[in-house]
C-alpha cells in the first residue's frame, strides 16, 4: 500500500520526520531548560555563600560567624535548605535546619571556583549543593562554604516545563501533520485531476484530456492526448483502408457477377455461386476489420438517440415500398440521450443490421426501445412480423444462419451484430415481441 499511493507515501514520510524532529527538539529544549533552572538555583545559593563569607571573621586563628543567615528556610529542621562551613575538614558551623546531622560531603571545593553538584541529604533526599573555598586573612587554611537546596524544586520546575512542552509539541505536531496532508492533497490535485479525466475518457464521457495542467504533469497529458489521437487515427486509417478494399474488391465482383448473369450453363452458375461466396466473405471480414476494436479503446461514446433517428430516416426510405407502398413505421421509445460505450460506427452497424432485419420481416411496424440500468443500456428491437419459434432462436443466434432464403442477408447481419456485441462486452438475445413478431435485445455497456 505504501508503495502504491504517492499521497500515503508522502504523508508517512513527513509524519516520520515531524515526529523525529519534535522528539529531538523537545529533548534538547527540556535539557536546556533544566540547565537554566539549575544555574538560577545555583546563583541563588552562591549569593548565600557570599553572604555567609561576609559574616566570617578570624579571631586568634579561629573562624567564627558574626551572624547567621536569616532566611527561615535554613531554620526549619530537615527542610533541605542547609549550609555548612568547613575549615580543614572540620565543620565549624552549620544551619539549624541540619539539626544533628552533617552533610555527607566527599568533595572539597577548590579555591576561587564555585562548584555545584548533587548530593543525598540526611533524609536521603536529593540535594543541590553549591560549594566554594575562600582564603581569609589571618587564616592559613581555606574556608569551605556549602549551601544546599532541595533538588525537587529543580525537578518540579523542569517537569512542569516538560509537561507544557510536550503538550505544545504534540499540538504543533498535529498541526504540522494536518498541514502536510493539506499540502499533499493540494499538491497532488493535478494528478487526481489526471486520474478523473482518464476515468472520464474510459467511460467515454470525453474524447481528450482538456483543461490546464501544471508544468510537471503537462508532458504526460500531452503524450496521452497524442496517444488518443493516434488511436483515433489508426482506427480511421483501418476503416478507410477497409472501405477502399471493399470498393476495390466489390466492384470487380459486381462486374463478374453481371457477366455471369448474362451467360448460360453450369459454369455460369458456378461463377455466380463463387461470386456470392466471395462477396459474403468480403462483407464479413470487412465488417470485422471496420470494427473499432471494441472497448479496449478508451474514449468511445455513441449517442444511441442520434444513431437510431438517422437509421429510422434511412430505413423508412429503404423499405418505403413494403406493405403495399405504405412502408414500415418505425417508432423510437426513450432512445434520446442514451449513450453506449463504443465507436459510433460500430454501434450504428449493429443497430442498422438489427433494425433493417426487423424492417425486412415486419408487416408494418418496428419499434426500438431503450432501457437504462446501472451499468448497461438495453435496446429492444421489436417487429410485427412472423417472429422466430423459440426452439430455433438459439440456432439463429449461434450461427447467424439464414432461416429463410427469401429475405437475403439476414443471417450475415445477425452474425456481425453478435460478433460486435461480444467485442463490446455486450450481448444479444432473441425473444417474442408484444407486437407479435421477434424481439431482438441488444445489451451494451452504458456511457
Amino acid at each position, binding site marked *: 500500500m505504501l508503495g502504491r499511493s504517492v499521497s500515503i507515501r508522502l504523508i508517512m514520510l513527513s509524519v516520520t520526520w515531524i515526529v523525529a524532529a519534535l522528539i529531538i527538539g523537545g529533548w534538547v529544549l527540556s535539557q536546556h531548560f533544566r540547565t537554566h533552572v539549575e544555574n538560577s538555583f545555583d546563583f541563588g545559593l552562591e549569593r548565600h555563600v557570599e553572604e555567609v563569607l561576609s559574616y566570617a571573621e578570624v579571631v586568634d586563628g579561629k573562624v567564627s560567624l558574626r551572624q547567621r543567615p536569616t532566611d527561615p528556610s535554613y531554620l526549619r529542621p530537615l527542610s533541605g535548605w542547609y549550609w555548612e562551613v568547613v575549615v580543614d575538614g572540620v565543620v565549624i558551623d552549620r544551619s539549624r535546619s541540619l539539626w544533628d546531622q552533617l552533610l555527607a560531603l566527599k568533595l572539597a571545593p577548590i579555591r576561587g571556583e564555585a562548584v555545584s553538584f548533587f548530593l543525598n541529604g540526611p533524609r536521603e533526599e536529593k540535594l543541590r549543593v553549591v560549594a566554594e573555598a575562600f582564603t581569609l586573612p589571618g587564616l592559613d587554611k581555606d574556608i569551605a562554604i556549602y549551601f544546599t537546596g532541595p533538588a525537587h524544586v529543580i525537578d518540579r520546575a523542569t517537569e512542569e516545563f516538560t509537561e507544557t512542552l510536550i503538550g505544545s509539541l504534540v499540538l504543533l505536531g498535529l498541526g504540522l501533520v494536518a498541514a502536510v496532508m493539506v499540502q499533499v492533497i493540494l499538491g497532488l490535485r493535478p494528478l487526481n485531476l489526471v486520474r478523473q479525466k482518464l476515468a472520464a475518457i474510459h467511460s467515454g464521457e470525453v474524447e481528450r484530456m482538456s483543461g490546464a495542467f501544471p508544468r510537471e504533469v503537462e508532458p504526460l497529458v500531452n503524450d496521452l492526448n497524442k496517444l488518443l489521437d493516434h488511436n483515433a487515427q489508426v482506427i480511421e486509417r483501418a476503416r478507410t483502408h477497409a*472501405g*477502399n478494399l*471493399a*470498393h476495390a*474488391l*466489390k*466492384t*470487380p*465482383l*459486381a*462486374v*463478374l*457477377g*453481371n*457477366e455471369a*448473369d448474362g451467360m448460360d450453363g453450369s459454369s455460369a452458375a458456378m461463377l455466380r455461386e463463387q*461470386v456470392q461466396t466471395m*462477396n459474403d466473405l468480403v*462483407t464479413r471480414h470487412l*465488417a470485422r476489420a*471496420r470494427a473499432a476494436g471494441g472497448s479496449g479503446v478508451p474514449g468511445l461514446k455513441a449517442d444511441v438517440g442520434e444513431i437510431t433517428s*438517422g*437509421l429510422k*430516416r*434511412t430505413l423508412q*426510405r*429503404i423499405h418505403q*415500398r413494403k406493405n403495399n*407502398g405504405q412502408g414500415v413505421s418505425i417508432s423510437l421509445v426513450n432512445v434520446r440521450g442514451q449513450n453506449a460505450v463504443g465507436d*459510433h*460506427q460500430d454501434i*450504428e*452497424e449493429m*443497430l*442498422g*443490421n438489427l433494425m*433493417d432485419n426487423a424492417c425486412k420481416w415486419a408487416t408494418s411496424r418496428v419499434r426500438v426501445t431503450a432501457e437504462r440500468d446501472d451499468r448497461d443500456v438495453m435496446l429492444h428491437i421489436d417487429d410485427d412480423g412472423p417472429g422466430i419459434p423459440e426452439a430455433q432462436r438459439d440456432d439463429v443466434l449461434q450461427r447467424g444462419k439464414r432461416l429463410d432464403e427469401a429475405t437475403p442477408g439476414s443471417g450475415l447481419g445477425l452474425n456481425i451484430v453478435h460478433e460486435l456485441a461480444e467485442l463490446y462486452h455486450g450481448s444479444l438475445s432473441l425473444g417474442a415481441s408484444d407486437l407479435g413478431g421477434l424481439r431482438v435485445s441488444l445489451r451494451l455497456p452504458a456511457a
Partner: protein
Amino acid sequence: MRVLVVEDEPDLRRQVSQALSEAGYSVDEAPDGEEGEFLGDTEPYDAVVLDLGLPKVDGITVLNHWRQAGRDMPVLILTARDSWNEKVSGFDAGADDYLTKPFHMEELLARVRALIRRTAGHATPILECGPVEFDTRSGKVTMSGTTVSLTAHELKVLSYFIHHQGRVLSQTELIEHIYDQDFDRDSNTIEVFIARLRKKLAPEMIKTHRGRGYSMSPPGETV
C-alpha cells in the same frame, strides 16, 4: 426516359449502361464526379445511378451539390460501401435509393424503374391511360387488351408521355428526355414518332397544343 450513370469502373459502367439501354432508357455516362455533376446540372435526367467512390469529386459531394442547386431527379446510389454509416449519410445527402455492390442487374433495373415511376407519382408498375396499358417491367404495351408492337424509340416517347400523362410536354422537353447526349437531335423526328403512335394507338390519345407541345390523357379528360 433519360438516365445518367456515374461510375468510374469502365467494365461496370458499360454493363450498367448496356442493361439500361436494353431496358429502353437513353443513357449518358460519366467516368468521374466532376463530369457527372456537370451533366446532372445541365441535362434533365429522369434518374441517376451514382457511385460514391469517384475520382475528382466524391459521389456524396456531387449529390449534395445537386440537391443544394435544387436538382431533384431521383438518385440511386450504387456503391461498394455497405456500412450503415455510409447508407445514412447517402440518404441524408438526398439519395432516393441505395444499392450495394455486387448486385444483380435485374435488381438495379427494378429499382431504377420504381424510382422513375414513383417520381412521376405512380404506385404500380403497370401504368394506364384510358385504354392504353404500359407495363414498365417488360415494356409491353396494350391497347384495349391487344398488344401493340412499338419500336424502341416509339416506346421511349410513349413511356415519357404515359409517365407524365395529363401534362403538356414541349418538344424540347420530349427531346431532352428521349435522346441521350450524343444523339443528333432533330425536332422533326419527334413529330414523326407522335404521328406513328397516334396511328398505332388512337389519334385522340395524343393531343396537340399549338405553340406549347403535346399531351397524353385518358379520352374525355382535358388538360
